[in-house]
């Protein structure tokens, strides 16, 4: 227990250091870079939820782009209604729609919009997860079905062009709660709000995984059948965690759209959804802090590479996927531990093999 406590403490300090760096960053970076970093913070929030789901519970979702996108779309609807002040957006006008449809009107109230951006993804996630996990459908099937959900939702959004903006998405916001979105001050405030959300979500999820509930999640990952035979309803745990992580994704989407100013189906498709998984894998699943670092690092690298060598990025992404999964299932976080152990006590085999153990059949 001692070492576990020490490790936790260490992670906590790591997180505090990270947050401090993020807080002082705007003083050194240009407004443009701060804004970019703010977007990455939205992703960092999202991956905490994803880590809760994949790293701790062992359920892989390739559908988080959708929950992220739903949060973003709902916020985008609100923002564009605020900017238009009663008029309909351009794309509706071109399609001859003069009145806002009901699912736009609902979100004209800011509180409803903020709550909706979190609750709607949660509700959809609960429905999907309930019907899949209820019957003990294999986790792999669940993963495939979440990917199908992405495909279906994206096709739906693209085809309902007259009310969703189609492939162009929703854009052209000018104000948020009365403040101008283009002013650097507003963007900085949004940046700090993102940091606040990151801290809040991280804190909540740390509480969650260190509680008895968190222990049950890890038990589901390592031997679901044993836990089920001990009398736990593992399906409901999984439904709950999936729903929580979808809500976090919705929150992230909401923060994302306020800082980017556009949301379109390409930002929530199959590739973005799976890239989110990569951030978790790179940082280190099952550590909470690892994915946050992974998301920030990978996105910074992506911006750097796509600015200099755009073609190179996909190769790089592909190779990273393969290398991380095969050689470093524990991600960057396990790298520091591996180095520490090699340098220090020569404790072999103590390195977490969490990723490997999960899928062996628990009961023959």
């Amino acid at each position, binding site marked *: 227990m001692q070492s576990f406590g020490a490790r936790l403490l260490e992670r906590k300090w790591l997180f505090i250091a990270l947050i401090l760096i993020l807080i002082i960053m705007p003083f050194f970076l240009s407004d443009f870079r701060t804004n970019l970093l703010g977007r990455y913070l939205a992703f960092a929030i999202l991956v905490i939820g994803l880590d809760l789901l994949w790293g701790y519970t062992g359920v*892989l979702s390739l559908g988080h782009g959708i929950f992220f996108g739903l949060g973003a779309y709902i916020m985008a609807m609100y923002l564009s209604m605020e900017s238009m002040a009663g008029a309909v957006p351009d794309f509706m006008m071109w399609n001859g729609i003069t009145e806002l449809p009901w699912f736009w009107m609902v979100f004209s109230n800011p509180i409803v919009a903020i709550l909706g951006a979190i609750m709607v993804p949660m509700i959809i996630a609960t429905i*999907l997860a309930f*019907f*899949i996990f*209820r*019957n*003990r*459908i*294999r*986790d*792999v*099937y669940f*993963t*495939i*079905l979440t*990917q*199908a*959900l992405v*495909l*279906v939702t994206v*096709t*739906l959004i*693209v*085809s*309902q062009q007259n009310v969703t903006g189609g492939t162009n998405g929703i854009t052209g916001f000018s104000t948020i709660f009365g403040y101008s979105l283009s002013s650097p001050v507003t963007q900085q405030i949004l940046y700090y709000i993102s940091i606040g959300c990151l801290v809040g979500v991280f804190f909540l999820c740390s509480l969650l995984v260190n509680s008895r509930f968190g222990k049950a999640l890890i038990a589901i990952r390592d031997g679901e*059948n044993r836990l089920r035979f001990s009398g736990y309803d593992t399906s409901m745990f999984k439904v709950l965690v999936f729903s929580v992580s979808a809500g976090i994704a919705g929150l992230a989407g909401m923060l994302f759209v306020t800082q980017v100013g556009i949301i379109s189906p390409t930002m929530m498709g*199959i590739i973005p959804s*799976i890239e989110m*998984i*990569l951030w978790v*894998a790179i940082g280190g699943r099952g550590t909470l802090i690892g994915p946050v670092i992974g998301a920030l690092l990978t996105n910074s690298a992506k911006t750097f590479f796509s600015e200099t060598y755009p*073609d190179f990025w*996909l*190769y790089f*992404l*592909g*190779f*990273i*996927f*393969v290398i991380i*999964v*095969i050689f470093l*299932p524990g991600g960057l976080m396990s790298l520091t531990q591996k180095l520490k152990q090699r340098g220090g006590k020569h404790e072999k085999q103590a390195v977490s093999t969490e*990723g*490997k153990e*999960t*899928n*062996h*059949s*628990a*009961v*023959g």
Partner: protein
Amino acid sequence: MIMQAFNGISLGSILLLIALGLAITFGLMKVINMAHGELIMIGAYSTYVVQIIFSQYLPATMFDWYYFLAIPTAFVVAALIGMLLEFTVIRHLYGRPLDSLLATFGVGLILQQAARSIFGAPNVGVQSPGFLRGGLEIIGVTLPYIRLFIIALVVISFLALAWFLYKTRTGRKIRAVMQNREMATCLGVSSRKVDTITFAIGSGIAGIAGAALTLIGPIGPTIGTYYIVDAFMVVVVGGVGMLMGTVVGALGIGVFNTVFEYWTNASMGKVLVFALIILFLQWRPSGLFSLQSRSLD
């Protein structure tokens, strides 16, 4: 109505060809091969290359015959690349289905980008052989020869695969490993070798599917991704380890997709099919057919 049914069967047969390879590799090795779509793409591009070689170096009268060389070429090229993939990446990931999914997705990205570098990002067209132009008229509807040819190709590939799995010695070994890996290994079946062969065959079939897709429309680096999600749905619905399940799953999804699209529109059709699959899984959680086993995994 006949037209709808025909279109459904046509779509279903393509899905079947794609899903067969997936079903075998998933059933046998518990590996989710996300790069399967890129193997389709490789098959399609090798057909394209064969066509170019024919049109440049051989007399025009020979051109129509290129397709009969293109199919085996697509099979062999895709199978070789699949073998390489198995040897370099998938070998390390047995028993970790979710990890295999991520790693093969990475491989898929690399292959897509490679295709983009070699053949360019825009789609390229493959000219279908002359004898497939036109169609067969039955009771007032015209069934395009191309579609009929694809259905025939799928039937032949399926029969060949079934014969291979159920009538040959290697096929028996594959089925043995699929049913109980440990026991088969104890009885002297080299599961390593079986894995490699199976993966190569699954990839080869994807290559044939790619060759078939060139007849339908232009091909591009992302051609596989259009079909791969649907093909995974077929595997989920049909269950793993049984060829019959894949057939019923593929035709079912193909027909329902076409019918729903006819009733509503393309996107609502997809939504309805997805809802139907979720409902179906309430009734049959492990798919239509699956190997009966007492083990708990």
